[in-house]
């Protein structure tokens, strides 16, 4: 039964455009979906590999800006006389570039940052995101600064009679759903594998991990690359949906949102970011419906974070797992986050 539940859930979601006619609600689902993908990618780094990287929004934003710039085309003068220019490319290609550039940034950051550990690493990650934001604000020739990149083309696939345009919300929702499911499957395969065990091992006890031959740096970098690439994809999706991108996309507050989603939902679990994303994607709408100001919403978020850390330090999903295990009165390995679902067979 449990095996088919996720697929039922996906099927249910896939049917949404057929019966949901309220486009505003569909918009909420789309943006929440994009944020869930970003949260899942953060969970890989924060939850499974145990690195409190608070610069994650940088990967999201780099994916967004790269995709925007490649699809719009650009021309910049790097230094006296030396100009780099690119003609506009199709959106799908731009999105691919977004993913690759974000992934590559992850590689560079990973290689450099993990020489620095613990609290210092947190600070470096935040600083990196801030520097990227300030570059986006100030390098007006490339990014238009605060005036934003506008008229970003929508994604279209195929040609002629077989062309599908992801301009309208129902189609884009399906796109986000597919991207989300693909990301989930990818991450799930990764964390339940030998590589995933290595990442969890270095989270749990680095010296012990090294002593069994695990190259800690290598797996930190792998986790960062994949995490950054998925975040970059989420950013690229965002860009071609909203079709405007400005430096505010790099604000620290978005990293915080992702962190809240992951931590509240349950870091180190596959379902955690989804649960967290649903809660924190819909809560603002719920509050807005009650005519509560955005500041109060954030105050509630802040208080919620503190309460979750105190009372449900592992998050909601593991807590549910423990509760249902105690109801069944069976030893439940699933209550432990990140336990492999492999069966011990001979």
């Amino acid at each position, binding site marked *: 039964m449990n095996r088919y539940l996720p697929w039922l859930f996906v099927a249910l979601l896939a049917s949404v455009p057929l019966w949901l006619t309220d486009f505003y609600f569909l918009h909420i689902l789309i943006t929440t979906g994009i944020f869930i993908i970003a949260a899942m990618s953060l969970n890989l780094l924060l939850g499974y590999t145990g690195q409190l990287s608070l610069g994650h929004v940088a990967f999201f934003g780099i994916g967004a800006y790269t995709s925007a710039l490649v699809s719009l085309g650009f021309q910049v003068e790097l230094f006296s006389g030396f100009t780099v220019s690119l003609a506009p490319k199709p959106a799908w290609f731009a999105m691919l570039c977004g993913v690759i550039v974000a992934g590559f940034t992850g590689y560079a950051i990973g290689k450099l940052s993990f020489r620095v550990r613990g609290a210092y690493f947190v600070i470096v990650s935040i600083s990196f995101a801030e520097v990227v934001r300030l570059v986006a604000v100030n390098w007006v020739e490339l990014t238009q600064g605060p005036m934003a990149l506008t008229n970003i083309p929508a994604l279209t696939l195929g040609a002629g009679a077989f062309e599908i345009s992801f301009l309208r919300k129902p189609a884009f929702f399906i796109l986000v759903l597919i991207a989300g499911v693909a990301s989930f499957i990818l991450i799930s395969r990764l964390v339940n594998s*030998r590589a995933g065990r290595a990442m*969890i091992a270095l989270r749990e*006890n680095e*010296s*012990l991990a*090294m002593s*069994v031959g695990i190259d800690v740096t290598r797996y930190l970098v792998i986790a960062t690359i994949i995490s950054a690439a998925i975040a970059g994809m989420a950013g690229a999706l965002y860009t071609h949906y909203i079709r405007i991108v400005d430096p505010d996309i790099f604000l620290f507050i978005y990293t915080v949102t992702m962190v809240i989603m992951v931590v509240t939902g349950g870091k180190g679990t596959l379902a955690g970011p989804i649960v967290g994303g649903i809660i924190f994607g819909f809560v603002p709408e719920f509050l807005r419906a009650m005519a509560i100001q955005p500041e109060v919403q954030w105050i509630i978020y802040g208080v919620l974070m503190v309460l979750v850390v105190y009372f449900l330090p592992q998050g909601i999903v593991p807590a549910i797992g423990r509760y249902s295990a105690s109801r069944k009165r069976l030893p439940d*390995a699933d209550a432990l986050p990140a336990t492999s679902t*492999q069966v011990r067979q001979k």
Partner: protein
Amino acid sequence: MNAQPETVLSIEHVTVHFGGLVALADMTFSVRAGEIVGLIGPNGAGKTTAFNVITGFLRQTSGDVRYRTTLLNGLKPHQIAKLGLVRTFQRTSVFQERSVFQNVLTGLHCRGRARLWDTLLQTGREKASERELVNEANDILRFVGLERRAEEPAGTLPYGEQRLIGVALALAVKPSMLLLDEPVSGMNPSETARFVKLVREIRDTGVTILLVEHDMPMVTQVSDRIVVLNYGRIIAEGTPAEIQNDPEVIRAYLGQGKKRA
């Protein structure tokens, strides 16, 4: 008839300074293939420091460590483990939150054949490799006698059994030499006796063993040879019988209080 067994581990004039403190002073000894060597000494003598230097967790101030013919100086711990020289830890020797089975499966890391792409695409090679690893993990658990505890979180096991998990982890790397750091601390006498038997079984599979211990009867029982450390310096080396009668050794231990029975 066999020729003289080759030297697998050689420590040559290794010195470790921490600021003004001398943790190891001109330490030189070697371990031959198939031996069980015990490293003993009063608290603070430098035994764990020696382990840390040998396995790459600490850089020595001077001196060389060689494994077979490979110079280990400057190598990272995971590289040394891959060469076949594997250690256990005295404290935090397991992944607490994970099950015993998952612990051993993690230790089998180097035995996996599949690449990252195989994992992401779930190819046949990935699935075959995982099956092999699961089988090997079961074998190792049976070998150390923990198969009944496989699904329990490692941190919930009694301390003595956690040491066994630590050994299982090390065995998973398929070492040719094992460095055991106080393996029987926290074990009761019957567990210790079982462990001595296990150590001999491991040696019989062709693994050379160097162990650090405070439990004197256990060390004298299991070791072919004993090296005695005091204040970072080797003060005696020989068979258990020779060591027990060595005046230097007696002085070193009496100076620190009674030997533990």
